[in-house]
């Protein structure tokens, strides 16, 4: 991690926290910083990515604005987080993708939809594109051939996984030598990721702060809806892939089949989660957040929401003449999602998980100094 103004600012604020320590019960960040007395840029980046942005510490802080010190840990760490996404991006030449991330995600999405539409219209026979197809095997693939979907899907998703993995490696190395990773640490980190324990306000019951010192579980629940909705959609796709490849059962599947049920429930949850989180951005207190993150955050939320909504629309119109158009648009969004995956807000999940894993490996270390 490079020394930047954001890192300097965050380091200064962390040092104030380390002399105070009142917030140590809120989340993983404070116990982690109490293990250190000096903070390298890599340490600052580790703490920044450990921060879930719950804002509990901001409203509890005796030094938050308008105090002359203006301590604002959620914002200071979010600023470093934004820079860390640039720093760890792989390949390094693509780091600029994070500079105007909202624009980039929007552009890629528009181009992907246009591309899939144009290609699918180009390969269908003249006058056939808007014709209703009987709901029989391979109806979808008469619009876009199965091999094309699989090649493009696997290639783009495979690339995304590789790029995310390389980014995580850069992050892990940057935070300095780590304790060895055991099964227990993995289990703890996985639990923290899946439950979003650190959005629980310290005791798991209060949640986090949205626009005032009042606590609420809204954000945690909405994120759960989004995350588990996404995973269900992913599971639906995977089940469909297996059905087709190993059992020879071709789409479309019945409404009560496993892939359709998974996809429908997932799509609804994903829509609720993403729209809900977007709505919260409209009402949130602008102080403890980093403005530069906003465009990228909203772009990804909208991309996810539109992926889910167009999937549900496709399900609704699959027996009509609107199916090819709906499918092309849906797959355009999915293609965009896969393409921007390693260069979008999505990376926060990877770095956050890695930070939680590192924190789990340090769990038995004792704080330095203190009362």
């Amino acid at each position, binding site marked *: 991690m490079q020394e930047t103004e954001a890192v300097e600012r965050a380091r200064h604020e962390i*040092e*104030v926290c380390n*002399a*105070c320590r*009142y*917030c*140590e*019960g*809120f989340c993983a960040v404070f116990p982690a910083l109490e293990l250190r*007395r000096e903070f390298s840029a890599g340490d600052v980046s580790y703490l920044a990515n450990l921060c879930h942005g719950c804002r*509990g*510490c901001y*409203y*509890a*802080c*005796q*030094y938050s*604005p*308008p*105090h*002359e*010190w203006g301590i604002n840990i959620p914002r200071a760490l979010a600023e470093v987080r934004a820079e860390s996404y640039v720093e760890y991006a792989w390949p390094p030449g693509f780091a600029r993708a994070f500079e105007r991330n909202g624009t980039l995600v929007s552009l890629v999405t528009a181009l992907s939809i246009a591309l899939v539409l144009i290609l699918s219209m180009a390969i269908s026979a003249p006058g056939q594109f808007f014709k209703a197809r009987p709901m029989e095997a391979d109806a979808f693939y008469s619009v876009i051939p199965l091999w094309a979907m699989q090649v493009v899907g696997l290639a783009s998703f495979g690339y995304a996984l590789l790029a995310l993995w390389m980014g995580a490696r850069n992050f892990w190395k940057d935070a300095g030598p780590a304790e060895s990773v055991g099964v227990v640490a993995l289990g703890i980190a996985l639990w923290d990721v899946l439950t979003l324990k650190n959005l629980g*306000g*310290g*005791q798991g019951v*209060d949640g986090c702060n949205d626009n005032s*010192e*009042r606590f609420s579980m809204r954000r945690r629940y909405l994120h759960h809806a989004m995350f588990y909705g996404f995973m269900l959609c992913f599971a639906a796709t995977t089940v469909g892939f297996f059905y087709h490849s190993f059992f020879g059962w071709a789409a479309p599947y019945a409404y009560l089949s496993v892939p359709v049920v998974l996809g429908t429930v997932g799509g609804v949850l994903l829509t609720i989660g993403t729209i809900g989180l977007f709505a919260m951005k409209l009402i949130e207190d602008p102080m403890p957040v980093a403005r530069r993150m906003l465009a990228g955050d909203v772009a990804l939320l909208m991309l996810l929401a539109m992926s889910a909504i167009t999937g549900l629309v496709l399900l609704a119109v699959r027996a009509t003449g609107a199916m090819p158009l709906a499918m092309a648009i849906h797959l355009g969004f999915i293609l965009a999602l896969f393409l921007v995956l390693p260069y979008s807000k999505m990376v926060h999940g990877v770095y956050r998980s890695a930070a939680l894993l590192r924190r789990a490996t340090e769990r038995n270390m*004792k*704080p330095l*100094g*203190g*009362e």
Partner: protein
Amino acid sequence: MPDLRKTYDVLVAGGGNAALCAAITARQAGASVILLESAPKAFRGGNSRHTRNLRAMHDKPNDVLTDAYHEDEYWDDLLRVTGGNTDESLARMTIRASSGVFGWMRDCGVRFQPSLTGTLNLGRTNAFFLGGGKALLNAYYLTAERLGIEIMYDTEVVSLNMDDGVVRSVDITNRGFPETLHARCVVASSGGFQANLDWMRQYWGDAVDNFVIRGTPYNRGRVLKNLLDQGVAAIGDPTQCHAVALDARAPKFDGGITTRLDSVPYSVVVNQNGDRFYDEGEDVWPKRYAIWGRLIAQQPGQIAYSICDAKAFPLFMPSVYPAIKADTIEELAVKMKLDPVKVRQTVDAYNAAVIPGQTFDNLKLDGNKTAGLTPNKTNWARTVDKGPFYGYPLRPGITFTYLGVRVNERAQVMMENGQLAGNLFASGEIMSGNILGKGYLAGFGMTIGTVFGRIAGQEAARHARN
């Protein structure tokens, strides 16, 4: 919006822990309540915003406190720090009540950290607020709003107009505009006067210009002075205040906890002439913490400098300010604007006087001392010779003042003529001198504020509705 023409059952002057405990309790007892906080909303809560815990008696471990802390041990601790300058019946009542406040606090949204076995010395005696005092205040203010207590910020109580021991009306300024309010009962929970430098100057002279006020700038003692001027009985030594050693670079007000410095026992401490003036190793730091403020206040310019070497540097928690660092003692002295020759002489004399050979142990009184110096250092004395050298400037940091109003066990304010005030109650720092006449016990201010706030609220509500 509060109705300023209405006669409220209970008017609370102040906006810290004791004020909120009183206001919420009174409201829960059915009274209509208005609370007047002199600070703007962002700085509400008086000194409570800088606190962290509450000292509580308990007979067995619970989810926030380890082991046990019985009434007698608590009382002995209080007796020791106050040197007997306390009221046993009020103190014991407070101690006993401290064990029963948790349920009510939790109902008001206050959260505690789980008990931290072994990591904090105070984990046995003190319950830690999750997020500290400001988080506690946030919870209380949200509760107060939910219950329909009228809260006015930027509103200072100027005068409680008393007539024959009864408060008839209350003069305030709201955002600078004068108003007069009426209430059946008044609870004074407006703190001490440590932020009123002109008042402090009466006792300390111009030395106050070099004092750091650790807490809120809004504790100006206006209500306290107003009451004492109207024949309310005073308690506590007006000249005394709780003063600790702080990093001299702290802001004048509101620096809170992070400006404290624990370097003294492992350092050589000199005044601005470069002379040592007190035994740095007299006792473990928590016991000496509160005498060093006074010691420094008595030095020229109210400033001192703690100097240690690379051996000692890792032994204490740093303050929020970086240490001043240099490769030689002379260079360090120059950086701290001290006479390098004089500081060199002082350190050389100290180094020569260290009696070598004992095992150094920073966890107990280790008996490593100097011989032949005035004054000697009696523990943790080691030569200061391994560079780099580190220095911190120190100033007196004022936490609170001891002067207050006399109260009885029902938090009723007493008059100089021995009568009880008819409708006036007090809680928190403004009356803590009844129990804590001298010294300090960590977390005891919050205990007094919570216990007496609850009593004052209860009594005021009952009185107003009779």
